């Protein structure tokens, strides 16, 4: 399959400050791609340019083969956008909001099917003002997918979800992905990126710092592992490129069970924080999350 999104040399400045600074990125058709980065890294600007809500200063952008700037309604018919919040629907019910939205798409999903997919059947006929924060967020997602998009933009979709709701939501995203939907996800949650994404891109200061699968990002898979255990009431730890041999060696020396044995590699979060830390030092205002 080809690329759903291609970005070449994308640049956008606000008041002379470059929010996006020569970004190059390809997102393949059918993949789940997570865009990570600290606040102010240029994530939102990039995504809003891809969505056609902002215009780039420079560079070439193609989304489903079309330049989003001035793209027509037939292009909008093929993409779905889950906004950070969708207000203004307090007085209608999820069913009414979805039915009205579905009518503008040419290949819309069944409203009842979408309500079931996001777990809102029981609230389908309750006015939206009476929904909890998590239920509203699921409605936002429902509004984004009701048009049966080829490409779905998800902007921090699970902010405010409880752990069970997040798991359910991840399941929904996996199902959409299995159906072939290309998904571009921005998130602050590293575990979410790790659970969902085929590939992860980290941006800071408007540039791409790293691009890989979650398991391999920043050389994680090649990194040395840390083996730790308790011996004589003291915590020991060593870093090694061959943890299996190391554990066997220590076990042979101690002669039995190793209390408190752990073998760890850097978490995605640690790798991520190490990647972006130089860029946070620049102005001191960035907030890693």
């Amino acid at each position, binding site marked *: 399959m080809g690329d759903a999104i291609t970005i070449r040399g994308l640049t956008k400045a606000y008041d002379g400050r470059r929010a996006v600074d020569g970004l190059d990125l390809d997102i393949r058709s059918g993949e789940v791609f997570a865009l990570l980065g600290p606040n102010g890294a240029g994530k939102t600007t990039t995504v809003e340019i891809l969505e056609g*809500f902002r215009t780039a200063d420079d560079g070439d952008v193609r989304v489903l083969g079309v330049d989003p700037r001035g793209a027509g309604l037939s292009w909008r*018919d093929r993409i779905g956008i889950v*906004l950070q919040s969708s207000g*203004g629907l307090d*007085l209608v019910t999820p069913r009414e909001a979805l039915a009205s939205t579905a*009518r*503008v798409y040419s290949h819309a999903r069944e409203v009842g099917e979408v309500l079931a997919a996001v777990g809102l059947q029981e609230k389908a006929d309750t006015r939206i003002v009476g929904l909890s924060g998590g239920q509203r967020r699921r409605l936002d997602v429902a509004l984004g997918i009701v048009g049966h998009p080829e490409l779905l933009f998800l902007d921090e979709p699970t902010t405010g979800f409880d752990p069970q709701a997040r798991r359910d939501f991840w399941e929904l995203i996996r199902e959409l992905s299995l159906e072939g939907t290309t998904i571009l996800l921005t998130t602050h949650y590293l575990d979410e990126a790790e659970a969902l994404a085929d590939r992860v891109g980290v941006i800071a200061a408007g540039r791409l710092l790293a691009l890989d699968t979650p398991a391999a990002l920043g050389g994680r898979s090649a990194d040395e592992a840390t083996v730790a255990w308790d011996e004589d009431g003291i915590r020991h730890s060593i870093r090694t490129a061959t943890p299996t041999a190391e554990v066997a060696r220590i076990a042979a020396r101690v002669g039995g069970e190793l209390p408190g044995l752990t073998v760890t590699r850097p978490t995605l979060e640690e790798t991520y924080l190490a990647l972006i830390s130089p860029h946070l030092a620049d102005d001191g205002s960035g907030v890693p999350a």
Partner: protein
Amino acid sequence: MSTVALGLDRTLLELKMYSREKEAVFFSFLFPILLLTLFSVIFSGQFEDAAAATGMTAGGYFLPGMLSAGVLLTSFQTMSMSVATERDDGTLKRLRATPMPPVAYFLGKVGLVAVSSVLQVALLLLVARLAFGVAMPTTAQRWTVFAVVFALGVFGGTVLGIGYSSMASSRSIGPVVIGPLLLLQFISGVYIAFDDVPQWLQQFAALFPLKWIAQGMRSVFYPDSLAAAEMAGTWETGRTILVLGAWAVGGLVLCVLTFRWFKRGTT
């Protein structure tokens, strides 16, 4: 679906939301009807002599003003406040993210205003006729003037309201709309007789459409003998329609040129 069908669908959704918003129903839809009732009851004593001599009751006296206020409230006030709110709460951005033709959104707004203002006018006329015995116009010519003034007033109020919505954020739009509208209603002969307004204020009021809507409505419901009390001494029906037509066209141009889907500072 065609754009017109989508516009109809938007109209139904808008009507649902409007009818479920109690404050909007009260302050724009029922308000003129309540005021007509109130004024008719309060001032009935003062109109006893006039009613005996000329048939002009308090209800008949205030009806044109309340019709005009109703046109203004259901079109201009409802539109400016709802569009400003929808711009700020992300409704417009959400709609812009879908393949909905933008025209369908405006058709929905026009549909909402058309239905709510026609219902309001029908209720006002019913209450005036049945509760206060106000005589209805008997000639086709007067009803034609009524329909034209009403339609131009409502359309102009709608497009001007949508344009005006860009003047403020949803937080400040309430006072920014209601304050000037209240002043305009007082100097345009809606709540107090227009010939009681000082001439220089009359001239100022004549720059805005409400004065002309009210004058047009008086020409429909008042006896011709009262035309002498108008600024020009006649009903000026032709000029009324010209001025309202100009405001409607100007408002449409303004609305199209200034309309923004996104909050300020977000593009």
